[in-house]
């Protein structure tokens, strides 16, 4: 499995400036790639482009050599706002996409049961979405995405709307699940800590226009701890580099005025 993002730019119709500009990178089988950038730097746009929900203005995205033209179950997205369906219970939400894959009802149930167990929601299978806490919603959304066995899983700030404690818990769980499934994941986030916790590779976006500013290979040993010294010093280092970036943006805005 190889995903190529090849000199991709996106300017939304009616918009003066490009949301992302000339972004290129490659993701291979089993990699966990994190994209960081300040808010508004085009992270969601990038995810939507890879998902096929938007089309690039220039450049091309290919998955295993085939150009991405439309959304498909080989590139499932997990959104920040869970996007679970309120008219279905948790179990049917997890099973939703499997119906498109022409699986028998027995297979669907088996798969849904397995992934609900993986995210520790077995007891909540019959619950409606509104009866779940924020953390449980994201777990259910993760199970729904994993159940489809996509080639690549795209995550758009999946933990950004949760409280600190829940974030830590879910990060640990995702790390374990990733170790078990070896899924290829692209996760975008504004949190350096989150990126460092997961990533084999971090792609740092600059703001306005979002271009790839830096690519870092992270070889911190796993399982990672956000309190280890190596982690903390690396985090500090990245934050410093990011700050320069943010200051440049601020200066640019100032000069433009």
């Amino acid at each position, binding site marked *: 499995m190889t995903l190529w993002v090849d000199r991709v730019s996106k300017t939304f119709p009616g918009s003066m400036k490009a949301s992302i500009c000339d972004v290129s990178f490659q993701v291979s089988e089993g990699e966990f790639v994190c994209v960081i950038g300040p808010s508004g730097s085009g992270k969601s746009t990038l995810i939507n482009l890879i998902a096929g929900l938007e089309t690039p203005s220039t450049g091309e995205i290919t998955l295993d050599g085939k150009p991405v033209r439309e*959304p498909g*179950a080989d590139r499932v997205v997990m*959104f920040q*706002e869970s996007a679970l*369906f309120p008219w279905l219970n948790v179990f049917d939400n997890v099973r939703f*996409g499997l119906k*498109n894959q022409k699986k028998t009802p027995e297979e669907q149930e088996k798969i849904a049961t397995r992934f609900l167990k993986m995210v520790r929601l077995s007891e909540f299978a019959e619950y409606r*979405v509104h*009866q779940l806490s924020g953390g449980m919603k994201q777990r259910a959304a993760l199970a729904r995405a994993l159940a489809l066995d996509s080639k690549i899983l795209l995550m758009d700030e999946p933990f950004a709307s949760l409280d600190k404690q829940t974030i830590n818990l879910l990060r640990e769980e995702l790390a374990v699940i990733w170790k078990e499934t070896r899924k290829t994941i692209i996760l975008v986030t504004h949190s350096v800590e989150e990126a460092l916790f997961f990533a084999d590779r971090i792609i740092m976006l600059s703001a306005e226009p979002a271009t790839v500013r830096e690519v870092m290979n992270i070889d911190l040993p796993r399982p990672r701890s956000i309190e280890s010294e190596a982690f903390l010093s690396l985090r500090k280092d990245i934050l410093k580099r990011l700050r320069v970036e943010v200051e440049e943006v601020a200066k640019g805005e100032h000069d433009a005025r």
Partner: protein
Amino acid sequence: MPKESTTRGRVLRMILFLSALLMIWQGVYFLGVEILSVWKSYAVPSPLGVLNSLIEVTSGSVLSVAIFKSLQRLLVGFVISMGLGLILGLMMARIDFLRQNMKPLVLGLQTLPSICWVPFAILWYGLSDSAIIFVIIIGSMFSISLAIENGINTVDPIYVRAAKTMGTRGGALWSRVVLPAAMPSLIVGMKQGWSFSWRSLMAGEMMFSSVGLGQILMMGRDLADIDRVMAIMVVIIVIGTLMDRMVFGTWEKSIRKSRGLDRDDQ
């Protein structure tokens, strides 16, 4: 809003209020008709007279036959109106051209009281059941189609996007995502359409003499029996309320509750 006493207390208070109203009404009637004789007794109903008429009309089969006939027309009209409203609503929701150009027209037509269609109905269908059903359909389908268009276009796009990335496409996007997501607003639209149908039915049935609730209401007028007119009005109110609250109200409540849109105590 302050949550006041229990249901029982609320019902009790309402009964008390209604009884007081009835007593005042009876008092005013007594004063105006019997003592001062400023009003003619055939022009002013009295609570006791209405009660008498109610017992009278409900004892025979006239009323039940009329209700049956009326509900039958209503059902036929409503079902057709739902079908046409659904088609028109879906078309306005899907086709930008229609939404931009047709919707303002439909919005205008919707404000037209259904009784304005009566001349049309008679010229096209004569004095027949079809004429009444025509008035029902034309009086409710525009509001239904607007509710459907609105319900569909206010579906949160995140659901459609999520479904697409899970490999859902084409017709399945509609049947498995858009329609279920729009369901609460669709039910509100149906409820509204139903009450428009009900009003149109009455307008239609008063066009000419045909068995039905509207007709026995007019019969009361012809007999100069104001108590009877009022009694039938009460029946019409009760049926209308029952259908509105029991059928659509319950349905709406249950679907809203299952999605967490209402709390239990509301």
